[in-house]
């Protein structure tokens, strides 16, 4: 299908503890119970004005975000190819919600652990072909993925950053 990019810019990401709803994040959820979504790339550019080591994590949600907000400027979500065909099932991609998604803390579920300093640091992860981060459906523990700042690895301060995720829904 068509690759898309969702951006979250000019926000200060506060660290979130395990089993607590995230407040600053990027999340995507399937538009149906059978939709598959691949995350292909994540990029975070640190915009902080002082040293803020951050623990960035990618995890499935154990509690889905409640009432996701429509994407609003300066954030964006759109296809990389402007004339891409619209999807029958529209992905729920969001950067704000009445209650943000809660990242899963189960030891047996995958979680990506990516740290960097938001004062001038840049972090990028690219998936190899067939090795994307994949979610399927729209339920907990596999149907929604959230990119967030995590406090469990020692991060204490909030850091300003710009982030994007390239994803591909099917």
């Amino acid at each position, binding site marked *: 299908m068509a690759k898309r990019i969702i951006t979250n810019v000019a926000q200060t990401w506060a660290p979130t503890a395990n089993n607590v709803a995230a407040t600053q994040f990027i999340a995507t959820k399937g538009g149906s*119970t059978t939709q*598959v979504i691949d995350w292909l790339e994540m990029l975070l550019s640190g915009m902080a004005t002082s040293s803020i080591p951050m623990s960035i994590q990618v995890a499935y949600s154990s509690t889905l975000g409640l009432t996701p907000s429509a994407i609003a400027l300066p954030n964006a979500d759109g296809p990389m190819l402007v004339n891409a065909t619209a999807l029958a099932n529209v992905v729920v991609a969001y950067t704000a919600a009445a209650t943000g998604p809660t990242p899963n803390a189960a030891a047996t579920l995958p979680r990506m652990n990516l*740290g960097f300093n938001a004062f001038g*640091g840049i972090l990028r992860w690219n998936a190899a072909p067939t090795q994307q981060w994949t979610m399927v459906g729209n339920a907990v523990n596999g149907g929604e993925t959230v990119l967030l700042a995590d406090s469990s690895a020692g991060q204490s301060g909030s850091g300003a950053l710009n982030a994007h995720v390239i994803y591909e829904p099917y």
Partner: protein
Amino acid sequence: MKKSEGELFIDHRASPGMPPAQARQLGYDPSQVGEGSLFEAATIQCQHCNRMVVRNPLRERERAFCMQCAGAYICDLCDDERRKPDYVHLPFRKVVDLVASGKATLVSMGVRPLLVPTEKKEI
């Protein structure tokens, strides 16, 4: 970097980088993510649980591979899981196929995925 490996790129060339204590907490060697550093590493994916692993070039223990998945890499947790007597081989792509085709509903992914069949047939 091989064709089947992803890439992790962490640029602290214009940044104070990670403090040693926190770098260790996050699994980095502090010298790799300190001030002025550029850290590039391959990432590999477990074909059973979808976990992404940053390849540690200093690792000496052997990594696990699944012959039922055409010799694909699997993580240490899944390697442990598959040695249990009640283990059922259910790689991640199979889980995705079953849920995406509507044959099962996903309860949980991970090392031991939990699916509920939507048809009267055991998966």
